[in-house]
């Protein structure tokens, strides 16, 4: 029986692919941004990012998996998880392009109200969600009616799709989603694996959950020896990777670190204990070669390279203090965990004397001159003894006084445009995590761009009256957040500042929340009227413990909020050029900017500052 079902199912699948109407295909990439906005406007979770649905093997019988893997014909279905929502890379289920587009719209509305309420009864979950969506958005009723009718018509035309009782039920539910009919069904005899995929519904096996659960289970049952073998294998491959570790897309392979961690996002298990975390991260890394079958060519190399890169303690930078305790936000508990992190102020082991290139020094000089001019806000000063305009109000008052017979006459009758003295403190906080060690072009790395930026920024600001400080950060777990106080507010800009900047080296991870909290505490002590925290970064928050994915994003968002309540505005300048949703989620749409070309960062930063503080 099993075998038989499998065969039928296989035919369905292949047929499903041939069922596609290539000429009416709609690509997700063409409307991705629109759909993401719509998903949120339909009420979907703001924190989720829109990703391509993982190409699924449809959970069929094992024997068919291999065949499927070799064929390209797989069905992608929509689903929603903890970190992402997934939509098919393309939709071509109707011969009419407009209908395929409408299917995307429908799915984004459906996903927004989809609740995995029963957890087990996929049919009920789907029928319920369809009903909910249609009652919340009655304007979609007509759309849904057309989509479901057309789709059912097509289903009934597929030759290999036997019009079994189950299939007829599906068709009936598509046409009239009646929940009472679902509750009467015996689900045991109704297995989604036997059902021809329903592209208007959500995936009965949300990729985020099932895939990793299964993989974890598989891996955990392996013996220790087997694990060792695997580790060795990985090691070998890593060596192979070393040879061509600089490819044009990723730059340094260390950059892939982030991809490793984005994979760990999929592990749907409780990860509060640190020790456990690392193991699982490692598992996830191992899993990548399997996952990469599905998703391009990510490998575990990044993780391994990273581990090799950790400096021995005798070469590491110097810790100046015992550590400052800082809280961290756990979004799952909705609680601020007191004294959760320990931040250490660090100092480079050796500060090298270094000159920035003549070209850059020239730029610095030019910017400095501009800043003496530009940054200063101009204001019309009234009642001046001299000026470019007449102060009409003063003049009228004087006329009035004169008429009143007043003798002592006002001679300050001019308006003058002058610089306004303002009271502002700005702390520039730079991400020094290992990902900044990747190349942006043949000559320079991101870290070089960051150093150049710090240089130009500090030179420019030294020409103004604004108070400014510079800090850098990285982290390795919650008890080792590293903070480099490059220049404090009271320090004068000097050669030492510049030497410190050029001695910075990238390393470790990006525990953004803790760094922001520490910087905000510095700013809070300032007595100026306006306080600005400028964050310079190259990507998402992440660290090797649980600090990644949504956890890290939510903590950083919370840290930004905390700063705001202290009267500090946080603005993020990033060179992460992916179409990422986390930036507005963390900082707000008016509070971040993406610099497309990292090489433009150094010059853009001072200009941005003058714009921001105008």
């Amino acid at each position, binding site marked *: 029986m099993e075998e038989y079902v499998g065969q039928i199912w296989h035919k369905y699948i292949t047929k499903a692919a041939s069922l596609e109407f290539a000429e009416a295909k709609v690509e997700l990439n063409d409307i991705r941004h629109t759909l993401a906005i719509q998903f949120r406007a339909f009420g979907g979770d703001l924190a989720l990012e829109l990703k391509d649905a993982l190409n699924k093997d449809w959970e069929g019988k094992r024997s068919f998996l291999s065949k499927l893997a070799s064929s390209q014909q797989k069905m992608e279905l929509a689903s929603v998880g903890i970190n992402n929502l997934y939509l098919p890379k393309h939709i071509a289920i109707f011969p009419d392009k407009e209908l395929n587009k409408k299917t995307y719209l429908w799915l984004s509305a459906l996903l927004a109200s989809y609740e995995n309420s029963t957890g087990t009864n996929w049919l009920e979950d789907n029928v319920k969600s369809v009903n909910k969506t249609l009652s919340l958005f009655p304007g979609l009723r007509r759309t849904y009616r057309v989509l479901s009718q057309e789709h059912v018509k097509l289903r009934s035309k597929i030759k290999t799709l036997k019009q079994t009782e189950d299939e007829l039920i599906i068709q009936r539910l598509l046409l009239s989603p009646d929940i009472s009919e679902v509750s009467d069904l015996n689900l045991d005899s109704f297995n989604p694996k036997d059902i021809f995929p329903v592209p208007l519904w959500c995936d009965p096996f949300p990729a985020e959950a099932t895939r990793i659960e299964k993989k974890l289970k598989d891996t955990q049952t392996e013996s220790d020896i087997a694990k060792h073998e695997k580790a060795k294998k990985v090691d070998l491959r890593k060596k192979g990777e070393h040879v061509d570790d600089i490819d044009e897309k990723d730059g340094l392979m260390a950059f892939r670190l982030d991809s490793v961690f984005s994979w760990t996002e999929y592990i749907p298990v409780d990860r509060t204990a640190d020790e456990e975390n690392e193991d699982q991260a490692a598992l996830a890394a191992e899993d990548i070669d399997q996952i990469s079958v599905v998703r391009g060519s990510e490998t575990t190399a990044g993780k391994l390279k990273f581990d090799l890169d950790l400096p021995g303690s005798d070469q590491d930078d110097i810790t100046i203090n015992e550590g400052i305790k800082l809280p961290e936000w756990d979004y799952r508990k909705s609680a601020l965990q007191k004294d959760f992190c320990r931040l250490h102020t660090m100092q480079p082991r050796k500060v090298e004397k270094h000159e920035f290139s003549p070209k850059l020094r020239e730029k610095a000089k030019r910017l400095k001159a501009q800043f003496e001019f530009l940054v200063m806000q101009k204001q019309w000063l009234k009642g001046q003894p001299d000026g470019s305009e007449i102060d009409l109000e003063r003049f009228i008052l004087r006329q009035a006084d004169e008429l009143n017979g007043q003798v002592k006459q006002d001679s300050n009758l001019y308006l003058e445009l002058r610089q306004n003295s303002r009271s502002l403190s700005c702390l520039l906080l730079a991400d020094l995590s290992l990902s900044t060690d990747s190349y942006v072009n043949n000559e320079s790395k991101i870290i070089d761009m960051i150093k150049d930026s710090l240089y130009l920024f500090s030179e420019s600001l030294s020409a103004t009256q604004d108070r400014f400080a510079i800090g850098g950060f990285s982290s390795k777990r919650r008890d080792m957040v590293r903070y480099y106080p490059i220049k404090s507010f009271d320090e004068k800009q000097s050669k030492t500042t510049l030497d410190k900047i050029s001695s910075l080296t990238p390393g470790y991870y990006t525990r953004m929340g803790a760094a922001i909290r520490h910087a905000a505490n510095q700013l809070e002590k300032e007595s100026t009227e306006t306080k600005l925290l400028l964050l310079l970064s190259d990507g998402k928050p992440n660290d090797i413990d649980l600090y990644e994915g949504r956890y890290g994003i939510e903590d950083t968002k919370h840290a930004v909020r905390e700063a705001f309540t202290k009267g500090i505005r946080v603005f993020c300048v990033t060179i992460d050029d992916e179409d990422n949703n986390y930036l507005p989620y963390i900082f707000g749409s*008016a509070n971040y900017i993406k610099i497309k070309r990292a090489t433009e960062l150094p010059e853009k930063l001072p200009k941005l500052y003058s714009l921001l503080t105008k």
Partner: protein
Amino acid sequence: MDAKTMIETSDIPMYVPQHNEVDVFQMAFENQLPLMLKGPTGCGKTRFVTHMAEKLGRPLYTVACHDDLTAADLVGRYLIEGGQTVWRDGPLTRAVREGGICYLDEVVEARKDTTVVIHPLSDDRRQLPIDRTGELLQAPDDFMLVISYNPGYQNLLKGLKPSTRQRFVSLTFDYPKSETEQSIISKETGVDDFTVRQLVDLSNALRRLKDHDLEESVSTRLIVYTATLIKAGMDPIQACRAALIEPLSDDEEVVKALMEVVVAKLDVE
């Protein structure tokens, strides 16, 4: 509705309370305390002040502050009329003389020199010095100063100084809860309940997009506009485009995306 509220609301501009703001206002007035209203634009602050002024039977002087507004604009100035100089009271001075309510809307926009007149009026001195005429006015008990302020991310250099902020009893406003807002819209415009509910639902969904896809939030005012257009016979979807979506964004792609959501919400057969 009982008889008492019937009488009260008869000729007073309609106001649906969000919390205890009516009590707070009344107590502040009775105890000669200045009041600060914080909240986004179009959430009912002005309506609230108008309502309270009527209710308390005091004249209201509203000043919309802008970046050219000086202390003289508030206090008054000499003008030349027919070869004569005449002193003209500004709105603040008039309110002080008459014992009325002076409402400075968006006070952070005003020039810094306005704090010179705001400060002595908003502490226990309750005085208004008029330099030009050499007068020193003592505010009567039924004078009240109300300011409003929109604490947004955007105002980097325009925050309210702590020394000003800490002189005021403060109320925080936000867009009303769904049911409250629905009752506001239906009382203001008389549009049918279903449409009102869909409009408020939609607006709340759009509000979540603030700081994310949109820089601004749908205000109660915009929903009132939309409902007004619908009541006047405009097609609901077109009304939403004109009064709800277009004012929120200049980005064509965003407008287009959101219009599809509007249709999903409102295009009922």
